[in-house]
């Protein structure tokens, strides 16, 4: 009996991942354009900006970083900003708003977890491609493969934290009818505080407590530091522990918020 149950638990999760992968590949051109625009256009703009700052202002150090260090950071951060990405939490608020959550509640799988695995399936190609690019780059740039793998693990943990946090916030949709705005605010804060726009070390010291007190730095800044060899495996382990701590905290919050909020649900929208 237990074996059947375990098999079922594995099967539905794998099916959800497969479903997400199929959906991502249904429109192949869009998938490719999406990947290249999301990965390379913002980075291209950042690189242009760094180039301008150094060439047109005549400075040699910006926020304690040399030009080459900023370039290395920006290129490396692409790998992890793609892994951290994923707006599956928006699917949850849409389900609550439209009432389509009702169908999910009738199924023997949790809607929050189902949306995660399905979204993860969509992202898995991007993550695999990023890892491949990273391995290729580590060969030419003389970077440690171990560091890259450790960094990717941290980024995947960041992806999980990102979803748990988003799903917790999505519970607001049970009260507000539509919580699109709150997730939008979360994404804006994340884009600045995760380190995908610029290295967090260039923040003035008096503001560094802001990013240090959120888990967002584990999404991009942390993994990039690990991949570049600026964080030792010991520091990586320390931040992985912090990440797990955030995961547990958000998982508990998620449980509490959803179990309480779902009582508001009327099946015709939140």
């Amino acid at each position, binding site marked *: 009996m237990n074996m059947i149950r375990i098999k079922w638990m594995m099967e539905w999760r794998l099916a959800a991942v497969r479903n997400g992968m199929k959906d991502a590949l249904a429109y192949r051109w869009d998938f490719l354009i999406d990947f290249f625009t999301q990965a390379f256009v*913002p980075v291209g703009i950042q690189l242009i900006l760094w180039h301008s700052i150094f060439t*047109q*202002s005549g400075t040699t150090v910006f926020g304690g970083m040399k030009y080459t260090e900023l370039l290395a950071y920006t290129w490396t951060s692409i790998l992890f900003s793609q892994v951290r990405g994923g707006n599956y939490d928006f699917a949850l608020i849409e389900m609550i708003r439209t009432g389509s959550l009702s169908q999910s509640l009738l199924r023997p799988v949790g809607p929050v977890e189902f949306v995660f695995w399905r979204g993860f399936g969509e992202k898995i190609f991007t993550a695999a491609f990023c890892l491949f690019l990273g391995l290729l780059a580590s060969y030419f740039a003389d970077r440690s493969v171990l560091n890259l793998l450790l960094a990717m693990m941290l980024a995947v943990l960041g992806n999980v934290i990102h979803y748990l946090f988003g799903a917790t916030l999505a519970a607001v949709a049970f009260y507000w009818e539509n*919580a699109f705005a709150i997730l939008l605010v979360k994404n804006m804060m994340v884009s*600045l505080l995760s380190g995908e726009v610029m290295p967090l070390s260039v923040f003035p010291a008096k503001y560094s407590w802001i990013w240090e007190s959120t888990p967002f730095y584990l999404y991009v800044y942390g993994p990039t530091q690990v991949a570049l060899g600026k964080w030792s495996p010991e520091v990586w382990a320390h931040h992985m522990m912090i990440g797990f701590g955030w995961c547990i905290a958000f998982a508990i919050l998620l449980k509490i918020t959803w179990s309480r909020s779902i009582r508001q649900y009327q099946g015709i929208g939140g």
Partner: protein
Amino acid sequence: MIAIYWDVFKTIFKNNFVKEFIYRTNAFAMTFADLIWVVVELAFFEVIYSNIANINGWGREQCFFFLGIFVSSDALFTTFFQRSFWEFPMLINRGDLDVLLTKPVSPVFLATMKSINFTQVLNLILGFWIIAHYGPAAGFDGGLAWLAVFFWIIIGLATQYLMRFVSVVWAFWLERGITVSALYYQLYALANKPSGLYPASIRFVIKTALPFAFMGSLPVLSVTGKLPLQDYLLVAVVLVVYTFLARTLWKRGLKRYQSASS
């Protein structure tokens, strides 16, 4: 003719107002979210200028002044057009454009103005506040120069409308035109930084092929008296070319349109 369009606009306005405030809390939260976007942009420049005093003649105050004009122009565009442009590819993919083609007013007018977003009002106010607050330090005299600011905000609005139109009209040819919209918004990051922060080649691109500079950079240079005369001519030429391109693509797209799932 104008009266018909005015009546249609009033109806759209009323319908959208009701639709927006069905979800009142979300509407207020969206207003807050849009404000956060401006705060994030301000924070970005604050971090940059906490490390450096000046980039190619653009100091902290000039950058914030630029942001004020850009935010105002963007707030107007977002209010009247942004949602409609997001939905535009769906009109084509699902065949909903059929309905608009049968109406006695321009289908482009209906397709690009059917959804109004009321959550950007505070951004518009904030944009003007930023202009007023940082303008004097950036070389903006105020007074009659405000007319020039309004003029450039309208130019920025028209530019964004045309660029966005040219980016979404590809939905006639693509399976899911929403991807090109995503590409547009990735490139839009070029608009929210002053042109002086870019090298000469990029400055040329954002004044011609992708005229994002018309939304903030050129207006700042113009109202502070630093815009060369030939750039005024360039603005006119680029807008005319974009209008021609938009009209041509729309007409060709319509010929290709096969109703649902075209």
